[in-house]
């Protein structure tokens, strides 16, 4: 069955992130001036406005800041997966990523639960970073 969910829209800022995902690496921008690790990608550091960027590879571990369990398919591509869990994961390096929690029934997901990245290959270009309990 063809993949029928929305795919990320690549642009100059986020392309290195999604290329990293394809290689199963979580890459985040780190400010070359103040060291702040940020998400989403942007040309300026939101803390100090520096344009100096280096890319850091995250260890892929963090904790769940908050989550929501969808019982409604706003998009038909998700209908077969209800109920599913959307979460904000805070990576150990600092950035917060909106993602899904997998390999865990929605009723067992908790705030502050430690999680690690799981790679879901979609096609030749896109791999999605999802998370499961550690």
């Amino acid at each position, binding site marked *: 069955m063809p993949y029928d969910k929305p795919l990320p829209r690549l642009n100059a800022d986020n392309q290195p992130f999604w290329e990293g995902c394809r290689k199963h690496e979580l890459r985040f921008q780190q400010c070359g001036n103040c060291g702040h690790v940020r998400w989403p990608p942007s040309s300026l550091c939101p803390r100090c406005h520096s344009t100096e960027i280096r890319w850091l590879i995250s260890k892929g571990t963090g904790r769940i800041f908050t989550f929501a369990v*969808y019982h*409604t398919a706003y998009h038909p591509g998700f209908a077969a997966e209800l109920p599913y869990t959307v979460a904000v994961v805070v990576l150990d390096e600092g950035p917060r990523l909106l993602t899904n929690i997998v390999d865990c029934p929605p009723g067992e997901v908790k705030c502050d639960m430690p999680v690690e990245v799981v790679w879901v290959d979609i096609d030749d270009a896109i791999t999605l970073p999802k998370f499961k309990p550690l």
Partner: protein
Amino acid sequence: MLRMLIDFSGDDAVFGHFGATGGYALAARRAMHEFGTGPETWKKIAVGQRKWAALNPAAMLHNKPLTEADYDNARWIVEPLRLPDNCLITDGGRAIIVTSLERARDLKQPPAVIMGMGMHNPSTAIVQSDWMAGPTGARAAKETAFAMAGITLDAVDACQIYDCFTYTVEITLQDYGFFKPGEGRDWLQDGTIEPGGRMPVNTSGGQLSEAYYMGLTPIAEGAMQIMGRCGQRQLGPATKTKSPEIILCSDNGGILQSHACILLRRL
């Protein structure tokens, strides 16, 4: 419609995250974790506002009573938010006419006078936010408005709170200082916000039970109550509540990203 939703949600749609209910569900869940709120608190808001709608023939849910059991049995939309935690979707309009006090004195209808206003816009996208469990912009906006009006919270007789979701009402009242974090459930006991209650909230039924006219739902109701034009639901002897001298109204935007409030008083 689907295109609009995906455009609104950006790459969040990749993970099945769409629209406002999902965003507020993230905030509400964090609040459950941080200060122990939850459906037991929100149900008091949904049920209380529906009682006001029963007194408002113009309310979309006028003839649809809601009991606590109905709330408990309602379906999840995005957990922890159930259907009655969500505001209505409404086609319609509402307007406020603002003029000088000098002109207003001669009008046929008694005016509602603006005592103070405040606005505070933290604006951070909810996913990046540290304060989804408060303080939201409501705290700083309230300080500005009350300083301008020269009053304290004790002077407020009723509230019209922007209620896109039940949780929005709780976090707004909490950030205004009506109760401490997590004490909303106790504060709401015994019909505090309902007809006959000591602090009526959203007396038209609000966006949850009357109609969703964005910030116009609360402010129009605040003005109408001060003007004494609310019929069966009029604050005062008819609803066994205090006759309103001062009403606090709020507005909120994004996923708790912007906040405004206004204090209205009788002339």
